């Protein structure tokens, strides 16, 4: 049994006074335990909606999503999420932000503090425990958001273009950091991006989505050995995979424009 199973999921909604929109159609997808799965697709293909479905923040019109064989019906701490927008609580310090999930879950103060410290160190922010979010850069805020999600020890980590708002140097550092943490933490990750380089660099498998209505067009195995460093970006194998995925996305982008 796969860790996460998405079975024949569709998402339709009726905008007020408009025609019904099919955002997602017939999505079937499985993510194995400890796999780093990436979904890549043109903008507006509904990939963010798919992630919110897995998070339980919205409900599918048809189909079913299972985590460890159990149907997803509502949000829960077994599915931690990192958003593209900055979602730190501005009134809490870095330490308190990372502790938030544990606190809500009733974990004793001492244990909370220890766990938070561990993940703050893991994302390289020791010394910033008492800072408030507005004193941090964008990249630092996303690192805190990652630590906050990990501190809750979720079964799967859902990441919705978490580095999308960062400049390209910071983004590439964040990608390396994320891989390092993922290799330590042995986590299942479902990562969403529109950046093909990012998808190949991070993923074990990349699912390419079609333009609206979003479907899974093709699944691409990324057989680049780990650990990976930025050097792989220029290897022939990387370039071949990039060409293939670009081709798939390009067809979709053109179709969406037409």
């Amino acid at each position, binding site marked *: 049994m796969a860790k996460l199973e998405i079975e024949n999921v569709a998402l339709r909604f009726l905008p007020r006074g408009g025609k019904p929109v099919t955002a997602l159609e017939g999505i079937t997808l499985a993510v194995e335990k400890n796999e780093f799965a990436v979904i890549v697709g043109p903008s507006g293909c509904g990939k963010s909606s798919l992630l919110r479905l897995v998070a339980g923040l919205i409900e599918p019109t048809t189909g079913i999503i299972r985590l460890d064989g159990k149907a997803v019906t509502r*949000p829960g701490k077994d599915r931690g999420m990192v958003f593209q927008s900055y*979602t730190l*609580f*501005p009134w809490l310090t870095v330490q308190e932000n990372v502790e938030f999930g544990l606190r809500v*879950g009733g974990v004793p103060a001492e244990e909370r503090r220890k766990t938070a410290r561990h993940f703050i160190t893991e994302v390289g922010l020791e010394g910033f425990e008492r800072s408030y979010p507005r004193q941090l850069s964008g990249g630092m805020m996303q690192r805190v958001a990652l630590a906050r999600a990990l501190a809750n020890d979720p079964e799967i980590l859902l990441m919705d273009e978490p580095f999308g708002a960062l400049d390209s140097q910071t983004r590439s550092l964040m990608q390396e950091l994320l891989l390092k943490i993922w290799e330590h933490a042995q986590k299942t990750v479902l990562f969403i991006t529109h950046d093909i380089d990012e998808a190949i660099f991070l993923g074990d498998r990349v699912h390419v989505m079609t333009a609206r209505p979003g479907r899974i067009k093709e699944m691409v195995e990324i057989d680049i050995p780990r650990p990976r460093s930025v050097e792989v970006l220029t290897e022939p194998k990387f370039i071949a995979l990039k060409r293939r995925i670009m081709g798939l996305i390009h067809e979709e982008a053109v179709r969406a424009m037409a």
Partner: protein
Amino acid sequence: MRSAFEAYTAPKKEIPRSVYLTVSAFVGISVLAGWCILSYGGFVRPDFLPTPADVVWAGVSGLQDGSLLLNTAVSVGEIMAGFILASIAAVPLGILMGSFKIVEAAIEPVTNFVRYLPVSALIPLLILWVGIDMSEKITVIFIGTLFQQLILIADVSRGVSHDLLDVSYTLGADRRTVVTRVLVPATMPGVMDTLRVTLGWAWTYLVVAELVAANKGLGYFILNSMRGLFTDQIFLGITVIGLLGLLTDQLFKAFRNWLLPWAAEN
């Protein structure tokens, strides 16, 4: 090298602190000087425009016979009572109204109706219903402030990012926790700003109410001074209101920065 004129007149650019203070002082002193010239120079009759010294003396004698302090205390008491009562109701209701559609449906239509009524139009009715004592002033301030606060605070609450709530759910928070630990703290800077602005408006409602029917308070003091053509006292009343406004605003700002250090303003 750019000229000083060019540097100091660029939109949205900082200017040196010394220049800033000089300009502020210059305008303040000019107004005062203009007043001195017009009054001491005999260009305007003293019962139209008192001299600065007259106003200071009116203040001194007001302090001596206790009337100034009494009237100020009455006004401040009425403002505080009306404003605090309105805020106690408006903060929770406004937050709920901005984030729960069902509460919005219940309260917003009524609020928008009342909000556009000038409170001064309600004063005659309130005099009939409540009388002309302190409770009428408090009611005027309460009604005038409450509905404005509701709309503004609902907007603050509406503006809280959905992602902030969603991320809390994915961290395991239930609905109640999301409201108390996320929604409410997220609205606090906006709520404090709203309270600060509406406290200024409350002064307007109070003075209007005191001008219509009162036997105490700064509005009454001003009106009564007009009847005797004591222009110096009118000026005194206005100055006291202005200074009180300035003082409460500064206190509010300090309070906000103390309460919400993570959203402190300079």
